[in-house]
């Protein structure tokens, strides 16, 4: 009986860990803000991202963000930025690359203007250059 309970607990822990966004602080932003009226949330799994060599895409786009929402997200972002190995910033746009793990890359993108705020979390095997070429190509 104990063995069966152990198996159940292991299966549950594997499942819960699957898409916990590596325990990042920005997970709270997705949890808290996704249900707000002015928010669009996009979630895509590995099955739909094969051609980009990605395994997970999660974004949050807030129309006319309040200063509270902006501050909240930036504080959470700052917390995750501490472990970033790459940080690029240009006119309100930010990019963080988190440490690679078992061949997987993890990226956080952030963009904020008075009209909208976008927060994106991506994980997959593609390098930043590969992702950039894929998405700029798909726009052309």
């Amino acid at each position: 009986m104990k063995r069966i309970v152990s198996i159940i607990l292991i299966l549950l822990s594997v499942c819960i860990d699957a898409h916990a966004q590596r325990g990042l602080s920005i997970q709270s932003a997705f949890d808290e803000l996704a249900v707000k009226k002015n928010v669009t949330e996009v979630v895509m799994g590995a099955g739909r991202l094969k051609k980009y060599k990605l395994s997970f895409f999660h974004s949050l786009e807030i129309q006319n963000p309040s200063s509270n929402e902006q501050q909240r997200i930036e504080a959470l972002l700052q917390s995750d930025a501490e472990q970033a190995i790459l940080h690029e910033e240009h006119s309100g746009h930010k990019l963080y690359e988190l440490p690679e793990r078992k061949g997987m890359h993890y990226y956080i993108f952030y963009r904020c203007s008075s009209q909208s705020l976008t927060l994106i979390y991506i994980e997959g095997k593609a390098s930043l250059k590969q992702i950039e070429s894929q998405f700029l190509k798909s726009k052309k």
Partner: protein
Amino acid sequence: MKQHDLSYWEAMAERYFLAETTEKEEAQLRKFLCSSEAQDSRFDEIKATMSYLQVSRPKRNVSVRLPLKAIAVAACLFIAMFLGWYQYQQYNISSVRIAGEDTETDASVVMQKQMAEMFNSLDLNDR
């Protein structure tokens, strides 16, 4: 139960050992042995014998263990199937939610737009 003196029960105990008692009498005897009147040492032997037979009787609930095990295995299988289904859903998920409500919008179109906007503004050419 009708009142009897101790000699009546002593006689019944003797008949019990000779296997001459009926099931009804044995039930009465068992009841009597649990009462305060049966504290006399003359009934020690019959008490020991009857309690031993009671305790050593095969347990009926032995078979209960098997269904419990079967239920646990079934629950384990059910959870494993649920987790498999959940992982499959996560693998194939593609959703656009506005205010927490699912919409018909194509998620890949929104994703491409958002990513293109990001890369257009970030200058990564020098990397």
